[in-house]
């Protein structure tokens, strides 16, 4: 286990990079997924169609393929940038499809009468959603959303494999392949790094779940 202690700064940098990927991924897929979820229940048919297609494409494609498209496909059509952002983009595209479905299930958990009352008062679709439906949907969205976010944190390892560099996964690769350190302790360190993010994340979600449940 000396290898972990000796390389603690490297691991810490890896943790930080992974956290950055996850933070951007979290915000991006939450915003995009919520918009897509609203699309899926919208009265406008083309918007529903966009939402449904999005979910069907990105939920059903392996993340690796989505990342390949972002990392190698986007430069071919003239979009250039750092691999970091390609990686984050791929992660957001993929995760937003799952967030969308979590949000949609939450919206469907709110009784139809609430939406009818909102419309009957004269609120438009966006107002009904943001003042009446979403605040009530949140409490049933949090648990499935938590699973989606934890899966996303773990999926960030695949983003690392695409050469973003410097994240937890890349640290493992560097130590074991390039420097020839024994894989078992190196990977244990990597796994611990992910647990450092996911376990407090899970606890935070549990707290949030209780909080939105009481707020009613």
């Amino acid at each position, binding site marked *: 286990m000396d290898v972990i202690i000796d390389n603690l700064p490297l691991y810490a940098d890896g943790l930080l990079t992974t956290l950055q990927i996850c933070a951007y991924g979290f915000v991006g897929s939450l915003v995009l997924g919520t918009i897509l979820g609203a699309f899926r229940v919208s*009265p*406008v048919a083309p918007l529903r169609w966009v939402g449904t297609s999005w979910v069907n494409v990105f939920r059903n494609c392996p993340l690796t393929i989505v990342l390949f498209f972002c990392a190698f496909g986007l430069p071919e059509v003239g979009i250039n940038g750092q691999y970091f952002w390609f990686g984050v983009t791929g992660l957001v595209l993929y995760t937003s499809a799952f967030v969308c479905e979590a949000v949609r299930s939450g919206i469907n958990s709110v*009784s139809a*009468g*609430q939406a*009818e*009352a*909102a*419309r*009957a*008062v*004269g*609120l*438009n679709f966006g*107002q009904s959603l943001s*003042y*009446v439906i979403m*605040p*009530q949907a949140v409490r049933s969205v949090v648990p499935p959303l938590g699973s989606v976010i934890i899966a996303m944190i773990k999926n960030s390892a695949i983003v690392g494999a695409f050469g973003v560099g410097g994240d937890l996964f890349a640290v493992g690769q560097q130590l074991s392949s390039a420097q020839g350190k024994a894989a078992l302790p190196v990977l244990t360190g990597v796994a611990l790094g992910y647990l450092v993010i996911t376990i407090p994340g899970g606890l935070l979600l549990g707290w949030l779940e209780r909080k939105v449940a009481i*707020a*009613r």
Partner: protein
Amino acid sequence: MSTETAAPPMIKATAVNKYFGDLHVLKDIDFEVPRGQVVVVLGPSGSGKSTLCRAINRLEPINSGQIEVDGKPLPAEGKALAALRADVGMVFQQFNLFAHKTILENVTLGPTKVRRASAAEARTLAMELLERVGIANQAEKYPAQLSGGQQQRAAIARALAMKPKVMLFDEPTSALDPEMVQEVLDTMTSLADEGMTMLVVTHEMGFARRAAHRVIFMSDGEIVEDTNPNDFFTDPKSERAKDFLGKILTH
């Protein structure tokens, strides 16, 4: 009176048809509700009376025909429809108060977000209305903390806060415990006395006799009778109305 002929009826339905799949729930419905009139819609379960009520603010889209509110045809989805709904108050069987908001917030949401009233204006109006329906002391509570009768009165206050031209009541007392029916009916009666135009779908025969100017009797998706309450209750013309009244008034 000349003003009555000049002003269009508040609600006008022409040749309205509505299907749920193969089921023909509204069959060639024609009727009008003039301004200031209280019209009670009676009929057995499944006769289409709730669907008719919900079609007027397009919570149920119709398949053919035309519905006009205050002389204007119902718009399709979008801004114009939202604006129309703001002018048409609706009270539901299940109250449908916003569960995550206090009673006061339920009443102020529409005025602030749709009418763009200031928070202070909306609050003053809301407290006036809650006072009027007798639940001002419940303003800070959540809907689940109120009795059914109180919730329904709050829902009436919420609808009135939009200063509607007409009020629709879709079986407002059907989900209430018997001892709470009267308090809601009293609120509705006082509203009728003040000249509000109302369309009320109900099973409350007492309210129909006392407060209605007109009774529409529906059966199997058709308007079978359209007359004044006295004639309807004492001298129904159709077999279906006689049958209906026989079942209701004997127990």
